[in-house]
């Protein structure tokens, strides 16, 4: 699956799609593939604050429960509640319908430290190489 060029990515395999001061946040195709079938997601309540680098929820697959880390700081304005009944959307459409939360960023211009798609693809290529080494 292609990694959208306009998204920003974290080393923990989250993506962020910025529009104005609002950002959609989700986990990457690489992450969903590593997790396997997702059976449950725990998302923060609307109105709660998330902090860059800190965990804001969990994704549970048949193999593991993983924390999700915030790519940036801000306030949650929407959570993708359909995931409660259809968590498999994270597997089938991780970069689209499987988005997790919409956040109003505290400082939209400060996204330093996040990777662009090219850098992220290089990053996961090295991760895979390490895993198979």
């Amino acid at each position, binding site marked *: 699956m292609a990694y959208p060029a306009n998204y920003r990515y974290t080393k923990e395999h989250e993506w962020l799609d910025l529009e104005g001061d609002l950002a959609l946040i989700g986990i990457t195709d690489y992450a969903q593939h590593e997790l396997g079938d997702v059976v*449950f997601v*725990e998302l923060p309540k609307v109105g709660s604050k998330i902090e860059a680098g800190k965990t804001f929820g969990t994704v*549970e*697959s*048949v*193999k*593991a*429960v993983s*924390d999700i880390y915030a790519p940036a700081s801000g306030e949650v304005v929407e959570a993708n509640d359909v995931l409660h009944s259809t968590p498999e959307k994270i597997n089938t459409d991780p970069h689209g319908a499987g988005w997790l939360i919409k956040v109003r960023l505290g400082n939209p211009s400060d996204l330093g430290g996040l990777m662009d798609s090219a850098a992220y693809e290089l990053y996961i290529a090295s991760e895979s190489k390490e895993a198979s080494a």
Partner: protein
Amino acid sequence: MRYLPKSPAERQAMLSAIGAKSIDALFSSIPERYRLQEALKLPGPLSETEVIDFFKARAAENSVGYTSFLGAGVYQHLRSVVTDAIIQRGEFLTSYTPYQAEITQGTLQAIFEFQTLMCQLTGQEVANASMYDGSTATTEAVLMAERLTGRRRILVARSLHPEYRDVLKTYAKNSGLHVEEIPYSANGTLDQKALEAALQDDVAAVVMQSPNFFGVVELLPPLRDAAHSSGALLVTVITEGVSLGLLSPPGEADIVAMEAQSFGLAPSYGGPFAGVIASRDKFVRQMPGRLAGQTTDSEGRRGFVLTLATREQHIRRERATSNICTNQALCALAATVHLTLLGKEGLREMAHQNLSKAKFALAELEKIPGIRRAFDAPFFNEFTVVLPRSVKIVNAYLQREKIIGPFVLGTAYPELTKHALVCVTETTPRAEIERFAAAVRRALEQPL
């Protein structure tokens, strides 16, 4: 998993592999003064016949022929030899964390049956594979409520088992939980007015027991309404499971924490027992411990697996739902076998006998001048009476007559100075209840 001692050669090989010269060198990071300098003082080895003689002598020290009126969280009930025969099968008795679905269908099915029975008894939707005991199950229920509500204030009935309250306070002490006690009212039930006054939108859980520590049965619906009106969860604790043979299941509770000792586990020295946590399906992912689930295998046959294990400590480490719990598999199995033998009618019959005999005992005691019932709310197989003299003195007298007397409530409730908590189960014959009442009468007539 096998437990075999290592030979000196194997020890040497292991030591050289990690680069340590000796066992002492391996432990050199432990300060000298904390290391044992001499051999541990243990008695020397015994032959098989000596071991048998030793244990026969210890067994002869057991008190036999006593009749007990002591309950207070641990109850003497009928136990069938069938239970012991089944749990002593090697497949159950010696297996350790036996959850590999490919080879342990029997154990997983037994756990699944246990969970099913606990749901049926408690009126809840999901129960886990068991906890250490009722007290830790209660604390886990509180921690679960904290996770579910994001709140940290806990209102606990003073009529909750005092040892359960102690366990909760121990966990709460350094975890930022604020535990407050709600008093009991004149009839022994939880003081609803005090509860409502204490409830605010920062309360995670209202924790209460029924029948409570004084033996009094609580009415759950008003307590649930009060808790829910401020967004708190209702945690209901049950120490005497047999009561569920008669009382309506605590379906109003959001989380039920129960002690399963009454179901086929001997009182022993106070353990090992098995705790139960049961709750609503929607709360399952905040439930501690493990859960056995029913599924179908690749050929469509019914099978059993461990589910939700991904949230457990061996996988999530410090992020696990709980790091202070385990599954009491063998005790839970005993409870499962016991309840299956009893069946629904058997449990109801057993519960009826408890109530009838307790009522008879109360009537016998009330005939004695100076004795009165302390609380007038309904009870199950335990009730509180006020004696005209110290319960400890009466108990000392009873002991001479081979009777284990009632629980001295003053030890846990300083305000209940002459209050005795009397327990009568189906195992107490009518003649023994009469003998008990006569002995109490004589004890009260003894000169000081």
